[in-house]
């Protein structure tokens, strides 16, 4: 049995920041990640971040991962276990984890779940053919492993991920024949959209995939236009010769572990799916379990990092650690979150969060 005060599951932007914040209060911290690296999905993000200096605006995701991991490794009260998959959280606060084909037991006073989200599928005939990838997967293949996903790509989704990955494909020497977006407008930031348009990639708004085809792998796709009620318009089909379809149609929180742990869950479409009901310190209905990052609601890496701070400080304070300084850092972090979620860009997330709050009041 490994004993710790605060166990953090997931070493991405949220988990790293949670570990750092908790470590600063002097808590004994154990950070677990199922991959062989810290940084989570930051390690494939070659673009520069927005936000403010506190969330490393102007830095590339890959560099932020290195910086946070290096900072964390300075703390003697932090233990890091990589290639360790948490399998379950039990009533007595024991975590079961697998490392090197062995099951390990971990006893933690507080647990912060920061396991992120998974990519969504889109329903269309032959969506299971080899050559249909999650956009994040294509990004990993190119930016981490140096392999092109294919030669000619159709990107599905003109949100930030679709736009950014399109640009990164061009950087990797892959041709993108177009981006289809079911909504009548581009969802991502215009600065990203302008970049891909300047590079000659057409963005087809109010369009979707009718079907993919190919013998054993993707050889083409038929796209068609949608009317104002999102119904496809027959006769508008276009046949595109491509070998890759990249799906950038959103993410869903990886909520399995929280369901298993018995946290009260609520379905909030604006947050990407089922999320745990939580208080303002990101503590779930299980007083021992906190959440941070995409698992708490799909958002940006910048807000995931700040949520990590809130959860890390919240968990430490609940153990009587941190004192005045932690309270001050917490107030600052909550201010940063409010700023990140202000304005029209944060409208969806604010609506989602208010639904979670309503869920709390309704059950109280």
């Amino acid at each position: 049995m490994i004993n710790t005060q605060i166990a953090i599951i997931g070493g991405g932007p949220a988990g790293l920041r949670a570990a750092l914040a908790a470590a600063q209060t002097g808590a004994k911290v154990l950070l677990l990640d199922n991959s062989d690296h810290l940084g989570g999905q930051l390690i494939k993000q070659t673009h520069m971040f927005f936000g403010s200096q506190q969330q490393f605006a102007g830095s590339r995701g890959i560099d932020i991962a290195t910086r946070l991991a290096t900072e964390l490794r300075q703390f003697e009260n932090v233990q890091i276990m990589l290639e360790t998959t948490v399998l379950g959280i039990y009533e007595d606060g024991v975590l079961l984890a697998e490392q090197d084909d062995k099951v390990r037991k971990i006893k933690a006073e507080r647990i912060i779940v920061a396991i992120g989200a998974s990519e969504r599928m889109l329903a269309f005939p032959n969506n299971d053919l080899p050559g249909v990838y999650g956009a994040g997967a294509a990004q990993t293949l190119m930016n981490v492993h140096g392999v092109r996903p294919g030669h000619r790509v159709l990107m599905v989704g003109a949100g930030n991920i679709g736009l950014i990955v399109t640009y990164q494909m061009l950087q990797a020497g892959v041709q993108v024949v177009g981006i289809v977006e079911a909504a009548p407008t581009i969802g991502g930031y215009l600065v990203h959209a302008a970049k891909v348009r300047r590079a000659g990639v057409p963005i087809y708004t109010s369009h979707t995939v009718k079907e993919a085809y190919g013998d054993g792998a993707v050889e083409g796709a038929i796209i068609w236009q949608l009317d104002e009620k999102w119904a496809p318009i027959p006769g508008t089909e276009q046949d595109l010769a491509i070998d890759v379809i990249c799906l950038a149609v959103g993410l869903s929180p990886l909520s399995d572990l929280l369901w298993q742990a018995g946290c009260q869950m609520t379905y909030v479409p604006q947050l990407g799916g089922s999320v745990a009901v939580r208080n303002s310190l990101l503590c779930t209905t299980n007083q021992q379990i906190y959440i941070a990052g995409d698992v708490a609601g799909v958002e940006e890496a910048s807000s995931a990092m700040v949520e990590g701070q809130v959860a890390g400080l919240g968990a430490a304070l609940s153990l009587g650690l941190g004192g005045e300084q932690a309270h001050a850092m917490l107030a600052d972090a909550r201010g940063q979150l409010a700023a990140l979620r202000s304005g029209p860009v944060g409208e969806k997330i604010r609506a989602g969060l208010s639904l979670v709050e309503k869920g709390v009041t309704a059950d109280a």
Partner: protein
Amino acid sequence: MRITEHPILRYQKGPKVKFIYDGQEVEGYEGEPIAAALHAAGIKTLSHSHIENRPRGFFCAIGTCSSCLMTVDGVPNVRICVEKLKAGMCVETQQGKGVLR
């Protein structure tokens, strides 16, 4: 399929090694995921659906989706998108749910 020049990234690869994929010799870099090496070699079909036997390829790249399960050195259901390549590995297309030997 390998990216040799990139405006931002420099790829650090392990030594070039040989491994066996369904009886044929394939090259890859030690330490990269098996799936990256297969993809670079143009191999797209990794598994098959159990009932309809439809081909399945690389999908999530981070060990979440089960689309890339193969038998590696006799062990079935290995997620080859996160399993690191070693010299001489034997990677096989899996029949059905795999058999523990």
